[in-house]
């Protein structure tokens, strides 16, 4: 048939118009098509991998992403001379670094466009073993932070003649600032007395490095390194210290069968969440179950297999219910318990057994001291933690607790958890929740196993401060740095001898409380009444700490803080009250060694100033090798932005101790170039090379690096991450190593000849200073490292707690009735339901993060602020809202009331959002909201008039030799100020996310009211990166500054600020606006004093030491004599 029609179709030749004229002509066979064929690009790649192999990182061509929106090469071809309208091809140098927008240190790569010498994008680092090429929203925000139009472009100094907080600023030079600050530091240190060693304080927010600045403070001989930890996680760390003498948990999410989250942390915000979420997803894909215990239905809880909303602070009761069932239903892993619980210590401590009997913790004395007797004792002790009891105390329905037990048993020894913030950080005594969690996990033998729970120090690398062999004075690993012989009561007050970290949030209270100072001075201590220098770093204590008005009072007082400076890249509430603000870099603009325990391995990332690295790899050399990062950032147009490593090298050598008389200069003087500060490459080559043998071996045997001057540094410069050791399980069973007459345990060497084995198999030996230490344990003839505890086992009986007046809490315990709750109030949350007596009283849960907010630093990233708008209301249970007459969107007054002193702290006004996603009787409102500023703009005209030097004349282009040959001379010095690109003399303050407020304070009462929201604006600086800055639809209000209303609540044991509050809800009054706060900070001082005086058990005239010697005293190494104390009666 069709062949017949063929003849018909032949007629087609007779068309009057040829087909060629009829067709639309949809094909082009011109340069566009050829350009695709001649390129490496295709629309059908073999792999969808984002990342090219490492050998292409120095020069990687990639199609421009923006042009893809036009349809890609299929429509336009590849850009070339013949095809100018094609898709642009970028020539990138890919430089690895690490994120700094939370604590996880996920890998990043900066894609540096060679033609413009700008970072076109930040992506993940596929070589990073924890983050595996992935990042969260905060990671990608690094770029918007780098090109933030409001970033501080040069060192700022409070204008002469103005007072702190007036907001008058001038541009200064790095040299002037370093001379002034360095002299003040040097003069203070030179006094040499105890008080001066406590008076130059560094106060770190998120450290995001493993030991560098602490090492600086150690070489300065100061006990005044302070951290934010006690507003963060110390109640989460205390159980780890008491149980394993370690700093924190280390889970193995990826191999777990039961993922037991004690909060929204880990999976949707907070610690390591991006890496954790990936590992948790891996595990769930393999069939793991997830339990989330949180009074608020977080994102994680919403995705969990079981959501348990327990009344805040009662979590220990749930764990002990599990323990009861495990013990009494004979589900205990007896082999593990016998081997690794310190049962012998308890069973041989008759005094304590008598105490337990007397207090009713056990009903009968054990008949023997064997393991079976121990098991009988545990069964007896935990029998009262019945289902009925747990339901009553926690308000969790019985069926959920029974389900939890089933899942717990089903998971065997593959139960992974992470004890950190949330419950622990919110509640007084909630450290016991973590301890009880470890207890029942231990009963199941799930400690150190694959898929189980382990501890931090085996899974982390801390070498940032150990580059000493590159210096004249420090010696390898800092061995020659003198130990510090003083104890700072401002950071380690005598009332909290077991405080996990420094009592940092009480700093303004302790400086204000002259009666407290006098009390301890009269008793023989030397308590500072002021600070000579106060240096917060990337920290915003005014905003984030409780009782912010007290911070402002003290920061403004030049008699209490004589000189202040913040090393900060962005504006903050705290910076406003500083004498100097010195801009140091963000994630892609600084060097840090940073490692975290995110899975059972030891990895480190290497944070780098990526534009400097790109310049150096292209052949550029800094004029001043000690200020290379500063020069590079000026060349890149970021402004006079530096980094801390080079800043402190230079400070120590040339400004604090320029003549070397303090012994500090030599500590940071380069061994290769005596008289000059050590360089980045010298320091990190030593820090990594001296301490990570596998890395060193790899680097020096790699032909790409073996001929480099600093091969180990160069390896990490190119890779950005390294894993020294993987699959670290049951590390406590590692056998002691013997070499050359020495015995090695946990990496430390001891005299093998001095080794002895004591009670319960504990092995002791002498260190190089002749001090005897517990170094291991012998079990069944095997000499193992064990845990870091005194008994080298898991101490579920913490015998040393009895020496510090906390005998009743030496075992995992939770009050079993109202009488015990009154007697053992230290373990009862200050927001326990027993305190909720009024019909409008609630427990306010404050401790959770919004996954896209970074404490202080989000406000300089437009997309993070945009997606977080209006996300911090008060979550209130639907029926509670109904009962009190609150509807969605209503303004409420949230009045904070202290349950120890009974005092009111004031109130904040917040928006009601009724929801089924919060436990009845509790509220939720993250304390990460309520940023404010006092003005929209700051004008610093001399920032223009002083910047006369053009940083370079050649166009910014990494392939331009002229550009590579140039570098600004005398950088940081007077007369060498550089022009700042597109800087007009006036810049905004956090224009993407912080509204303007009016602030009033009179020494006793403070108020804050927002007066103006943010608006769109035309960005002048970095305009190409901020083309949509006019598109701002939100007003910037991110919640109420509730932290300022909060009074400090120091946990009597851990020292943690317990964040939750008892609150009374009232309708808003006429004139109230969401965001308003009213604070009685005079009362707040009294609240802190009440917690201190009514709850703590501090040093007394019987005390001989300040703190147990064997537990961690973070940051600087103290001489043993610093622990000694004599308190007058």
């Amino acid at each position, binding site marked *: 048939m*069709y*062949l017949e*029609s*063929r003849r018909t*179709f*032949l*007629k*087609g*030749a*007779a*068309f*009057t*118009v*040829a*087909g*060629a*004229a*009829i*067709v*639309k*002509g*949809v*094909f*082009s*066979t011109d340069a*566009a*098509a*050829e350009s*695709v*064929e001649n390129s490496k690009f*295709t*629309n*059908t790649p073999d792999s969808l991998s984002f990342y090219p192999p490492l050998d292409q990182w120095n020069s990687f061509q990639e199609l421009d992403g923006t042009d893809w929106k036009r*349809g*890609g090469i*299929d*429509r336009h*071809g590849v850009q070339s001379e013949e095809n100018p309208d094609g898709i642009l091809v970028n020539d990138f140098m890919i430089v690895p670094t690490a994120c700094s927008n939370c604590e996880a240190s996920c890998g990043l790569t900066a894609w540096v466009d060679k033609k413009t010498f700008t970072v076109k994008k930040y992506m993940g680092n596929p070589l990073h073993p924890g983050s595996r090429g992935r990042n969260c929203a905060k990671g990608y925000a690094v770029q918007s932070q780098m090109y933030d139009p409001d970033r501080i472009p040069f060192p700022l100094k409070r204008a002469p003649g103005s007072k702190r907080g007036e907001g008058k600023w001038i541009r200064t030079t790095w040299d002037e600032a370093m001379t002034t600050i360095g002299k003040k530091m040097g003069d203070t240190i030179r006094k040499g007395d105890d008080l001066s060693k406590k008076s130059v304080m560094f106060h770190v927010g998120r450290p995001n490095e493993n030991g560098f600045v602490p090492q600086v403070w150690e070489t300065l001989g100061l006990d005044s390194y302070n951290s934010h930890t006690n507003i963060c996680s110390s109640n989460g760390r205390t159980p780890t210290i008491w149980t394993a003498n370690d700093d924190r948990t280390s889970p193995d999410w990826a191999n777990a069968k039961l993922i037991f989250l004690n909060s929204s942390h880990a999976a949707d915000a907070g610690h390591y969440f991006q890496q954790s979420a990936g590992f948790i997803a891996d595990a769930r894909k393999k069939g793991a179950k997830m339990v989330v215990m949180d009074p608020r239905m977080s994102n994680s809880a919403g995705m969990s297999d079981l959501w348990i909303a327990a009344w805040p602070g009662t979590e220990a009761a749930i764990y002990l219910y599990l323990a009861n069932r495990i013990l009494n239903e004979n589900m205990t892993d007896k082999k593990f318990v016998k081997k690794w619980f310190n049962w012998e210590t308890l069973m041989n401590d008759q005094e304590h057994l008598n105490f337990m009997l007397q207090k009713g913790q056990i009903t009968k004395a054990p008949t023997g001291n064997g393991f079976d007797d121990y098991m009988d004792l545990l069964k007896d002790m935990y029998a009262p933690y019945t289902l009925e009891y747990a339901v009553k105390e926690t308000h969790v329905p019985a069926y959920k607790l029974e389900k939890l037990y089933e899942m717990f048993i089903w998971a065997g020894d593959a139960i992974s958890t992470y004890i950190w913030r949330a419950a622990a950080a919110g509640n007084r005594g909630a450290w016991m929740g973590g301890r009880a969690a470890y207890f029942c996990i231990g009963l199941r033998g799930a400690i150190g196993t694959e898929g189980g729970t382990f501890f931090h120090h085996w899974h982390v690398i801390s070498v940032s401060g150990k580059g000493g062999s590159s210096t004249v004075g420090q010696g390898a690993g800092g061995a020659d740095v003198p130990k510090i012989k003083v104890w700072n009561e401002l950071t380690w007050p005598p009332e909290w001898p077991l405080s996990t970290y420094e009592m940092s949030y009480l700093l303004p209270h302790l400086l204000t409380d002259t009666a407290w100072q006098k009390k301890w001075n009269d008793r023989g201590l030397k308590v500072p009444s002021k600070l000579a220098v106060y240096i917060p770093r990337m920290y915003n204590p005014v905003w984030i700490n409780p009782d912010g008005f007290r911070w402002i009072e003290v920061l403004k007082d030049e008699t209490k803080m004589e000189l202040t400076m913040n090393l900060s890249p962005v504006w903050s509430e705290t910076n406003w009250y500083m004498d100097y603000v010195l801009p140091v870099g963000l994630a892609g603009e600084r060097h840090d060694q940073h490692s975290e325990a995110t899975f059972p391995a030891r990895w480190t990332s290497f944070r780098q100033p990526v534009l400097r690295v790109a310049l150096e790899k292209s052949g550029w050399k800094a004029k001043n090798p000690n200020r290379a990062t500063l020069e590079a950032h000026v060349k890149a147009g970021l402004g006079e932005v530096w980094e801390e490593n080079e800043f402190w090298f230079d400070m120590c050598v040339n400004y604090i101790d320029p003549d070397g008389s303090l012994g500090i200069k030599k500590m940071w003087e380069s061994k290769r170039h005596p008289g000059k500060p050590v360089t980045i490459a010298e320091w990190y080559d030593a820090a990594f090379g001296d301490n990570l043998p596998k890395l060193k071996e790899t680097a020096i045997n790699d032909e790409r690096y073996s001929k480099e001057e600093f091969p180990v540094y160069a390896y990490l410069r190119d890779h950005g991450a390294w894993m020294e050791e993987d699959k670290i399980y049951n590390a406590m069973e590692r056998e002691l190593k013997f070499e050359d007459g020495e015995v090695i345990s946990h990496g430390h060497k001891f005299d093998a000849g001095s080794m002895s084995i004591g009670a319960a198999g504990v092995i002791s030996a002498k260190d190089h200073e002749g001090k005897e230490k517990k170094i291991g344990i012998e079990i069944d003839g095997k000499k193992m490292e064990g845990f870091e505890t005194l008994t080298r086992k898991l101490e579920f009986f913490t015998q040393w707690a009895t020496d510090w007046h906390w005998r009743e809490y030496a075992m995992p315990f939770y009050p079993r009735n109202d009488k015990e709750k009154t007697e053992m109030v230290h373990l009862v949350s200050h927001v326990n339901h027993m305190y909720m007596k009024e019909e409008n009283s609630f427990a306010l849960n404050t401790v959770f993060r919004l996954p896209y907010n970074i404490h202080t630093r989000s406000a300089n990233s437009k997309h993070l602020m945009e997606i977080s708008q209006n996300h911090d209301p008060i979550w209130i249970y639907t029926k509670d809202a109904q009962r009190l007459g609150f509807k969605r969107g209503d303004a409420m007054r949230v009045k904070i009331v202290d349950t120890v002193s009974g005092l009111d702290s004031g109130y904040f006004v917040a928006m009601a959002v009724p929801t089924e996603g919060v436990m009845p009787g509790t509220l939720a409102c993250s304390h990460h909201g309520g940023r404010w500023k006092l003005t929209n703009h700051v004008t610093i005209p001399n920032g223009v008039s002083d910047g006369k030097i053009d940083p370079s004349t050649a166009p910014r282009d990494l392939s331009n030799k002229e550009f590579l040959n140039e570098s600004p001379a005398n950088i940081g010095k007077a007369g060498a100020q550089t022009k700042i690109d597109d800087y007009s003399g006036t810049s905004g303050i956090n224009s993407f996310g912080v509204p303007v407020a009016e602030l009033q304070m009179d020494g006793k009462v403070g108020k804050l009211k927002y007066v103006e929201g943010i608006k769109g604006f035309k960005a002048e600086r970095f305009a190409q990166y901020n083309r949509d800055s006019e598109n701002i639809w939100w007003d910037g209000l991110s919640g109420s500054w509730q932290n300022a209303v909060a009074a400090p609540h120091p946990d009597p044991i851990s020292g943690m600020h317990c964040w939750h509050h008892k609150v009374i809800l009232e309708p808003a009054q006429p004139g109230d606006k969401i965001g308003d706060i009213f604070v009685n900070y005079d009362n707040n001082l009294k609240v802190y004093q009440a917690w201190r005086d009514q709850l703590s058990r501090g040093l007394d005239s019987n005390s001989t030491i300040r703190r147990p010697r064997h537990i961690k005293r973070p940051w600087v190494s103290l001489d043993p004599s610093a622990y000694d104390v004599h308190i007058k009666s």
Partner: protein
Amino acid sequence: MDELTARSNIYGLLSRIMLQELDVEILNTLMNDKTVLEFLPHWNEWEQRTSVAPQKLLEEYLNPDFTNLSLLHLVPYETFYTRADQMVETGGANPVTDIYSAYDFIVDYAVARVVSADHIGVELEFMHHLCQAQMKATQEGDTDAATELQAVQHRFLNTHLLQWAPMYLINMKYESRTPLYYDAAEMALEFILSDNETLTTDIAKAP
């Protein structure tokens, strides 16, 4: 050579009709070219063809029908018919893209106004270009190239057009509301089947 010219012209004509709405200029050809009218008998006989003004004919009859047949009701894309999930592959994984690229063809979407390269109008135009290329090779005496181009046409017909276009064209024929598109669907269906037989026979005869 006449046969080749005829095939090229017919592919061109069908491509244009299937690709986009008609315009007055092409409509004139369709109304006046006697050979074309012979191919489209119902259109030829349709009263409105001559009684309605061309612009009105387009706006009120033909273009609404075209819109229904290629945008609203039917889906003139290969991947819609060949993928199990009936999704049109608009990205680089479209199976025709590689073939076009192999012969240095690239679809200019701004001209074509289609969502992907496997639109029936684009595939028919590709056949037209292959015929044109074969003609050029024949005229230049490059027998190898001419033979190869003929084989490409055969392959393209069998791996693409014939895999799905008959289904679309049958649907088109029965969904059409104007004689023009009714005839065009039938003509296209018959032509591609016939052309395949022609090519099969010619290739079998080739030395």
